């Protein structure tokens, strides 16, 4: 019961819960029919496009139905001492770690290691990663959502994420324009560190699963220890 109350409070920040009196299901059906027609058109032109479209819709529905918010996952542990979203994120990593490992194993058995072609996201690591992620983290909390959150909240009918999206366009285009500066100074000297290149993939998977499970337990312990909830001004709402 108490845990449900916390959930309700946490969710209040991630989306409107006020229920409209009028049912909108008929509109949902129209949207889904249009989406299906688009799927067929895409499938005829390009099978891969159809896959991107359908999975995109599924991702959007899951994000919205579970009120999944990456910004909150990072922020809640120290803002309201709640790690529920962070633990959900860790769970999703456990699932994708196994899945990606199977896919990459197929690739590695048939190909030499080429970072650009390994299925997944393999990038150079260095100072630029730290600077970029730090800037991203500040921006994420100030805008009140990350890239996936922006897309999700546009679908909810909010106006604000359109402004964040505009900012995203400006920032990311500026970043690409300035890229040669960062590339010459830092990124060109940075290397990719792809764990399976140095250690057997099976071992990497086992170690990573152990780390994720360890972090999950740590997050659960942290919330138990700090079982309270604060609002933005630091007032304790529940302890």
């Amino acid at each position, binding site marked *: 019961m108490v845990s449900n109350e916390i959930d309700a409070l946490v*969710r209040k920040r991630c989306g409107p819960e006020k229920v*409209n009196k009028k049912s*909108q299901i008929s509109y949902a059906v129209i949207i889904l029919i249009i*989406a299906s027609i688009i799927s067929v058109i895409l499938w005829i032109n390009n099978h*891969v496009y159809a896959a991107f*479209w359908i*999975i995109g819709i599924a*991702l*959007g529905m899951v*994000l919205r*139905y579970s*009120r*999944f918010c*990456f910004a909150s996952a*990072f922020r809640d542990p*120290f803002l309201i001492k709640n790690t529920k979203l962070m633990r*959900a994120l860790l769970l999703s990593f*456990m699932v*994708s*770690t196994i899945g*990606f*490992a199977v*896919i*990459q194993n197929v690739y590695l058995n048939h190909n030499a290691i080429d970072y650009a*072609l390994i299925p997944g*996201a*393999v*990038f150079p690591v260095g100072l630029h*990663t730290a600077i970029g*992620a*730090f800037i991203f*983290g*500040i*921006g*994420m*909390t*100030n*805008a009140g959502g*990350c*890239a*996936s959150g922006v*897309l999700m*909240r546009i*679908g*909810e009918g909010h*106006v*604000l994420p359109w*402004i*964040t999206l*505009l*900012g995203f*366009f400006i920032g*990311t*285009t500026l*970043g690409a324009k300035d*890229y*040669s500066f960062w590339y010459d100074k830092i990124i060109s000297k940075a290397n990719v*560190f792809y764990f399976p290149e140095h250690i057997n993939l099976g071992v990497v998977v086992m170690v*990573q699963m152990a780390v994720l499970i360890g972090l999950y337990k740590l997050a659960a312990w942290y919330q138990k220890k700090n079982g309270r909830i604060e609002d*933005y001004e630091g007032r304790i709402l529940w302890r």
Partner: protein
Amino acid sequence: MMQWLKKPWPYWIGGVLLGLLNVVLLALTGSAWQVTGGFLLWGAGVLELLGFRPFEWEFFKIYDYKFGEIILHHNIFINKYTILNIGVVAGSLAATLLASQFRLKKAKNIRQAMFALLGGIMMGYGARLTGGCNIGSFFSGIPSFSLHAWVFWIFVILGAWAGVNVLKRFLV
């Protein structure tokens, strides 16, 4: 049935499904989930329409393996990355309507809008340095066994912590 459509799912179910969908996407298309690549193409596409030549930037030469084909075939506005993003918006819209919770919600005030714009610019710029946002670089990077994603994790948390303190100062 109606109540069932309105009920939010627990976070853990969302987490497991997002992880699964990312695996399915990678298996079917060879690309993991990413968001800002599509944003960049749109931003650069608009610049091109305005008469600039963004696709001659060094960035697009370095990431030719990712964007080369799209630029070559002039699919700047409609391509796999942007289709995925529009799909996420459409999915969220459909889910919101199924729950009958769609409401146009305006920004509270100019300051909130400024925060949103500035936050977006910072996220966009940061994402370019790290190879993607917290989806493309982090959510897809951790299961790809690349060290950069772990560094991203540490510093995005530090950034979020710094951001919260900025937020607290402005709101109090």
